[in-house]
């Protein structure tokens, strides 16, 4: 039977649009991100009052927080404390990946289990293949998280800029310096932005597909926590390994952590920015992650149809993978 890609994409985009709209409309999402954004906006002026001199500053434009990939290597070579810097950069990036991944995993699990427990799946499957349902949701959650991330970053930058017009915000530089990162040295240029974006998207695709698979084995909202746990454990494992191994250095360990999927989502871009690996290894790391994402997608394709109409006890991730291996997907 001919597979109609055009129709698949159109239908999948409707799932994407609907899921994204509902993520934005969701009351608890609005509350959570409202609080987060409020914290981001208020943290700079509040901290400036508490930590700064509190006096009015000459109008000198926004604060100077720059992250420059090109000059970072130089800074690291001559920097005062390489260990602190490495640890701070790794820790900061790993936290970013972890937050995005855990949030995304939770949203994906909730979206899938909600649909299953609401007994909507069969109604949906009249119009759409199960992979398109899940893929549409993954993309919607990714778009939602990227929007929230960019929104948060923009609001923080705006808060810094506006606060900098009225008061001293030099404490931000002091905090960064305390972490081993000097202000004025770091600016997020387009190249670094692209590296971060690609790395985040790949991390998202890997972790979210595991969560989606795990969620597809659930039938009720009560099972949601267990499904969430499976994805979160994989994310936490990657996070912990990357933050422990990063400051250790060592060529073999660096290469292993760059190429080992799930850990590399947290460490590969940091190793690259730190100058520990070159483009070749970074692209190799991305390729492995992309390949694994494809394999997970193929596995998903084999089992979703059966899982998605499954009701009853929760099918665990291990059983799902075994089902896919035996070709018992439908």
């Amino acid at each position, binding site marked *: *039977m001919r597979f*109609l890609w055009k*129709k698949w994409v159109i*239908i999948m985009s*409707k*799932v994407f649009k*609907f899921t994204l*709209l*509902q993520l934005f*409309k*969701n009351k608890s999402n609005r509350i959570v991100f409202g609080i987060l954004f409020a914290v981001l906006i208020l943290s700079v002026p509040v901290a400036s009052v508490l930590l700064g001199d509190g006096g009015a500053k000459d109008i000198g434009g926004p604060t100077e927080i720059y992250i420059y990939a090109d000059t970072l290597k130089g800074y690291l070579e001559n920097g005062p404390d390489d260990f602190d810097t490495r640890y701070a950069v790794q820790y900061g990036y790993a936290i970013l990946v972890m937050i995005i991944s855990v949030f995304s995993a939770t949203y994906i699990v909730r979206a899938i289990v*909600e*649909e299953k*427990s*609401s*007994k*909507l799946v*069969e*109604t*949906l*499957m*009249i*119009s*759409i293949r199960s992979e398109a349902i899940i893929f549409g949701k993954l993309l919607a959650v990714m778009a939602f998280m990227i929007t929230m991330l960019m929104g948060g970053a923009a609001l923080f930058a705006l808060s810094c800029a506006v606060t900098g017009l009225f008061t001293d915000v030099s404490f931000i530089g002091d905090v960064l310096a305390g972490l081993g990162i000097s202000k004025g040295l770091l600016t997020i240029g387009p190249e670094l932005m692209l590296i971060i974006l690609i790395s985040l998207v790949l991390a998202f695709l890997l972790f979210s597909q595991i969560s989606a698979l795990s969620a597809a084995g659930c039938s009720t909202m009560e099972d949601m926590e267990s499904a969430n746990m499976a994805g979160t454990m994989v994310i936490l494992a990657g996070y912990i390994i990357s933050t422990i191994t990063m400051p250790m250095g060592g060529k073999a360990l660096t290469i292993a952590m760059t190429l080992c999927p799930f850990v590399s989502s947290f460490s590969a871009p940091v190793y690259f920015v730190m100058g520990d690996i070159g483009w070749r290894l970074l692209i190799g790391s991305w390729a492995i992650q992309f390949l694994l994402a494809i394999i997970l997608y193929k596995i998903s394709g084999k089992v979703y*149809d*059966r899982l998605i*109409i499954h*009701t009853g006890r929760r099918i665990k991730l291990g059983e799902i993978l075994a089902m896919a291996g035996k070709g018992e*997907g*439908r």
Partner: protein
Amino acid sequence: MGLEVRNLYKKYGEKVVVDNLCFEMKKPGVYALLGTNGAGKTTSIRMMLGMLAKDGGEVIWNGQPLTMDNCNVGYLAEERGLYPKYSLMDQLMYFAGLRGVSKEEAKKRIAYWAEKLGATEYLFPEKKTKPKLADELSKGNQQKIQFMVALISDPELIILDEPLSGLDPVNTDLFKGIIREEIAKGKYLIMSSHQMATVEEFCTDITILDRSKTVLQGHLGEIKKSYGRVNLKLKTEQDAQSYIGESGARIITMKETEYQLRVDGEEQANALLGRLIDAGIQVVTFDLREPSLHEIFVEKVGDYHE
């Protein structure tokens, strides 16, 4: 032309759950797929709709394998629901979009069905009134929205799995009216239900499944005819038990002087009537008829479950 299901087969491990199901609908009408719980009805429907892979057989629609691309299907699943926290209009527009209905057309159809099903106040609330969410509706009203979802694409093949379960008599009549209208429009309907009276009211052809196998199939009228007129409803003014006993008829149920009897055939029934008249028993009701679908169903699949 029409729908043809050929040797549909499915097994999980060693267990056969659908064993060579065959039936066809050559012209529009209502076909009933009946069976006990776990007989394989829902699995068959899922295979027909391509939700589950078939281990054998094929489903043909107008000479082509049935796909969602060549057949506009409306499906009311047995396990059905709505997004509990999303607005009803959002959900209906979403499902309409998935079925390829344009926004403008979807709005028209939603308004039409809302009017028809008495759901206008939920879907088109007055200004300054918050739109209703699904979990704020009663079960019957949720079912109206689910029914709208099934019919929003104006499907040519409609599959209704337990369409009237959980409805009050008023809503049951409302839904029945809509089913009748769809039949009148020339749609192909497949209905699965445990409410035999409802099936009997609509269906022309049936298949009864028992533990994955087809145990009875054919035109309902012909099937009933083959059983003969063996059900006798008798109501008299005086006690008629002794005459019934003499005639050889079996009393199935009895309430005062109102009897539900099983006779061997018309001859035995007529003999009983003659005997009652001769004895001066005043007969109020004498209704000899074929067995109901309920009785046929119980006879066919009852042994295993007794």
